């Protein structure tokens, strides 16, 4: 272990990465300046025993056995159940709302209006009123007894049929000319190969296993809320603000989210359901639970917006991209104003360093519920279009798709990943294997890149983590931030165990309670990179205090004491961990670590890189696509918990295949209502559809913090749909430019080829 850094000392560390397989190492020395009092940096040469190891998820057994209690599991004495009345119309005005009949029904404890008479109704599912009662059956009966009248206006739920939508031809290509771009068109005119096409994706719903919702209990002035959320502190502030009128102050609100069954970007706020729950509990003077049902999940709790993008571009004779023009549209519901509704579509920029480029994006409205951020917002849509476009361009130019990437990708790290991944996947052989012309099943392989940039941040004011060492030898680490399933508890436990030189089983990690130190909302893949250095700092401070006790006991200098292999002491005199902890008094060592800002200067790599390869088999008789195998090569800075990190990547691949082949919201134009708002008809990849998945993580030392993890939740979600779509193109010899790639579209593509 490196010695603690003195104040303002520059420390020389080794950054970069060791090559995967036969790839070259890219390591270099760098001077960094840790903040005063921070733990010293771990770098490429630090021997780590726990961090990066193949540990199980610390709460895996609790989750699998049902001991872990999610918001939907919370049960309190006298708990009431609640549900929301939803608007059946897509557009109009609420003109009458009569709640008294519902209030008078047996078993009903409270009824609250969520919309005032005269307010606008914006989509089917807009919240009108909420009811709490003894059980959900009675609550539903009461909802049916509420009289709500509407002034109905004509609606449009198809975002590509609105006034400002671009004109599409019969093949789905944008039929409007490109706005003039002199330099770009000049480059296109010089290109050896050019191509242009339109790509489209459908609305994907978040489909978290645990629905949105809350349980709320008032005790006097205090409000305690269990919320299925990605942002405990955000929810706390939001509720305090909304309930200010009831004399509530932030400090009196406790939010619990000890276990969260997924969020994917849809659970940053308390939502109308969370607020309704608190209002009902207040009115009923009893605890209330309000969880959305699956239809409400699909129709009111956010989604990944639909996208339409058109690309044109050109290659020079050497296969270099010299022109690249993108215009895109996002379909993200009623809240689009002045073209902005969060539907932005991102495309890769590392292929086009030498190209003339242009980008334009417009969001288009429809009378549907608003989009929310979803795992790498805008990226899977845009990467699908851009990577498939590149494959089509490569095909025209007679260049192998991998070769095209290698000629144009400006990121060294991904260059290494492409080469390593292609070798491991067997790209060249798989790509060269022909399909018999009359074969029923055609195979194909494809690939796509990924990028993300998230090295975490300190937070303002800085995030903290609490660490306690008890005299029985147990260690407690606590963050008020939430573990949405990505593994924060495991990350906290492993880093503390590493710093303290003990078995991770001695460490208990607690998350998701606002009584504990504040942490970030879990968005943008920030949680692990932001909190890893904070827990490290907490354990580092606790270790110093323990060293003080041991030094006194041994009559040694505290600076000579270290913790390793379950012992504490000097080079010559060592105590077993349990013995050392007995020196602690009845009060535990109790310290709070903080997240210091990232080191100044440039990190080794500011972006996380990855690439994925996929092999598919297409049944040309039925149009069904099956993914046979996939490989992801992915960096995520310092790998903390290997198994959990791999599981993020595998999960992203599965979600990506599901997006590429199955998932889509289907709206009934006439009623404005979603037709497939359940898991029977909203199709999600199932267990029998899971291909052989391979994942290789690449540890990269970016030298940006003491404990340099990088965000991983989102990057692998960027490449997966594109990898599947490019493989389908290879299998068919004809692209399917509209996700999901369902049998009807495959058969249409085959008919075009014939």
């Amino acid at each position, binding site marked *: 272990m490196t010695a603690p850094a003195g104040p303002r000392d520059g420390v020389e560390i080794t950054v970069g990465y060791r090559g995967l397989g036969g790839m070259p190492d890219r390591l270099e020395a760098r001077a960094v300046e840790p903040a005063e009092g921070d733990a010293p940096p771990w770098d490429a040469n630090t021997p780590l025993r726990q961090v990066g190891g193949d540990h199980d998820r610390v709460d895996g057994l609790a989750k699998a056995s049902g001991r872990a209690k999610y918001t939907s599991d919370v049960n309190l004495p006298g708990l009431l159940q609640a549900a929301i009345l939803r608007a059946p119309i897509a557009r109009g005005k609420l003109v009458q709302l009569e709640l008294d009949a519902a209030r008078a029904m047996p078993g009903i404890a409270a009824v609250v209006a969520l919309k005032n008479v005269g307010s606008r109704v914006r989509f089917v599912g807009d919240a009108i009123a909420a009811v709490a009662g003894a059980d959900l*059956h009675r609550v539903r009966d009461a909802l049916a007894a509420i009289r709500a009248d509407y002034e109905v206006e004509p609606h449009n739920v198809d975002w590509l049929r609105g006034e400002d939508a671009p004109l599409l031809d019969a093949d789905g290509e944008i039929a409007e000319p490109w706005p003039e771009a002199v330099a770009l068109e000049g480059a296109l005119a010089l290109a050896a190969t050019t191509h242009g096409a339109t790509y489209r994706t459908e609305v994907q719903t978040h489909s978290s296993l645990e629905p949105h919702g809350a349980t709320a209990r008032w005790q006097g002035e205090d409000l305690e809320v269990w919320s299925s959320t990605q942002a405990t502190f955000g929810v706390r502030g939001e509720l305090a603000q909304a309930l200010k009128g009831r004399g509530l102050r932030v400090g009196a609100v406790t939010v619990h989210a000890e276990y969260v069954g997924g969020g994917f970007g849809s659970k940053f706020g308390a939502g109308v359901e969370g607020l309704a729950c608190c209002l009902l509990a207040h009115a009923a003077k009893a605890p209330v639970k309000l969880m959305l049902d699956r239809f409400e999940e699909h129709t009111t709790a956010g989604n990944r917006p639909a996208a339409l993008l058109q690309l044109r571009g050109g290659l020079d004779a050497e296969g270099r991209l010299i022109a690249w023009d993108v215009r895109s549209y996002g379909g993200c519901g009623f809240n689009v104003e002045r073209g902005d509704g969060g539907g932005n579509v991102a495309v890769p920029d590392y292929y086009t360093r030498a190209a003339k480029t242009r980008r334009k994006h417009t969001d288009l409205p429809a009378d549907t519920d608003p989009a929310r951020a979803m795992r790498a917002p805008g990226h899977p849509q845009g990467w699908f279009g851009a990577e498939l476009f590149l494959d089509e361009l490569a095909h025209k130019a007679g260049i192998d798709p991998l070769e095209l990437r290698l000629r144009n990708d400006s990121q060294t790290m991904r260059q290494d990943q492409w080469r390593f991944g292609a070798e491991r996947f067997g790209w060249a052989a798989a790509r060269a294997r022909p399909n018999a012309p009359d074969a029923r099943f055609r195979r194909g392989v494809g690939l796509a890149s990924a990028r993300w940039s998230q090295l975490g941040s300190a937070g303002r004011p800085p995030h903290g983590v609490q660490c306690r060492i008890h005299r029985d030898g147990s260690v407690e680490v606590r963050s008020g931030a939430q573990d949405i399933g990505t593994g924060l508890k495991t990350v906290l436990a492993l880093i503390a165990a590493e710093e303290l030189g003990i078995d991770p089983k001695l460490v208990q990690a607690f998350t998701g309670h606002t009584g504990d130190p504040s942490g970030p909302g879990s968005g943008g893949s920030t949680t692990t990179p932001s909190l890893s250095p904070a827990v490290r700092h907490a354990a580092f401070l606790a270790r110093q205090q323990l060293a003080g006790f041991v030094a006194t006991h041994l009559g040694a200098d505290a600076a000579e004491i270290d913790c390793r292999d379950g012992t504490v002491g000097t080079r010559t005199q060592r105590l077993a961990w349990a013995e050392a902890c007995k020196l602690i008094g009845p009060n535990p060592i109790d310290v709070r670590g903080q997240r210091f800002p990232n080191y100044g200067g440039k990190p080794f790599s500011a972006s996380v890189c990855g690439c994925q390869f996929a092999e598919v088999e297409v049944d040309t008789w*039925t149009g069904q696509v099956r993914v046979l195998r996939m490989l992801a090569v992915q960096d995520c800075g310092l790998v903390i918990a290997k198994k959990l990190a791999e599981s993020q990547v595998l999960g992203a691949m599965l979600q990506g295949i599901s997006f590429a082949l199955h998932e889509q919201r289907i709206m009934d134009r006439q009623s404005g209502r979603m037709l497939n708002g359940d898991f*029977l*008809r909203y*199709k999600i*990849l199932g267990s029998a559809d899971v291909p052989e998945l391979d994942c290789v993580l690449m540890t990269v030392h970016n030298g940006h913090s003491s404990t340099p993890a990088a965000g991983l939740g989102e990057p692998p979600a960027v490449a997966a749909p594109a990898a599947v779509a490019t493989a389908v193109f290879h299998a068919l010899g004809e692209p399917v430019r509209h996700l999901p790639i369902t049998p009807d579209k495959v*058969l*249409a593509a085959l008919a075009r080829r014939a």
Partner: protein
Amino acid sequence: MQPFTYVLPENLSQADAAARQPDTVLKGGGIDLVDRMKERLQTPARVVSLLPLRAELGGIAVEADGGVRLGALATLAELERHPALATPALAGLREAAASTASPQLRNRATVAGNLLQFTRCWYVRSEAFRCVHGGRGPTCLAVTGDNRYHAVMGYSDCVRVHPSNLAPPLLALDAEYTTVLEGKTRRRKLAELFPSDPRGQAPEHTLAAGEIVTALHVPPQPASARTSYAESREKQSFDWATTACAVRVVLDGGVIEAATVVLGAVAPVPLPRPAARLMLGQKPSAALFQKVADAAFTGALPLSQNGYKVTVGKAIVREALERATR
């Protein structure tokens, strides 16, 4: 859900009496029925569970004449693995059961419930819509709405499809069904269970109110009979067929002596196709099967979004025929 009385009969005559009470429904595994009750599409005053009658109405057995009796309460999981079905002649029935839904559902779903389940049309099965089905509204909403999974043939004013996996192979095998009503037992051809003119207003099956299906009977099969079942879907797990086909062929010295082709999931009822006759006296060949597949869809009138089902359905007929004659 509306409150209802739950009746657990001790024997068939109690069930028979209970089933004839007004506003009463029968429940097998309950997968389909309870779904519809939760959606408030059906709000009966009484639910009679048949599950206590497993001893009488369950099980699978070979009968004296060599035929196979499937108790109405036999589960799909039992069909999948029962030795009485382990013959090439009944392979199609086994395959149809094994490809249904998921293992959990197959452990619960009963043979009678599977044949009698309601359509999965997303307009029919939502309380938010008022369509012609069951007389809830004036017109079929799928014709002008989203009909990607709907009927391509055999429909009149309602374009729902019949979703049962078991119906096509049982029809192909010329199965019969036994019912009890008012103490009387009747045995009829399975084809009679489904309406000949499947309109929106008409019930999905021809049973009288309170009539209990007690068993299905698969007649004895010649040694050279073969059946197979094929279906198209969008994914491997937990999905409904977009088209399905069961075939039965009897080969004599390499020549097709008898043949039946029954389509599922393309019409409001499972649909035997006369095109099977084209195979009589012929030797199996890819060209012949293609011809039969094309002919099986003559008269198809796909809707605005489901033309693909005709292409896919033909492929599925071919696949079923190839597998049965392999």
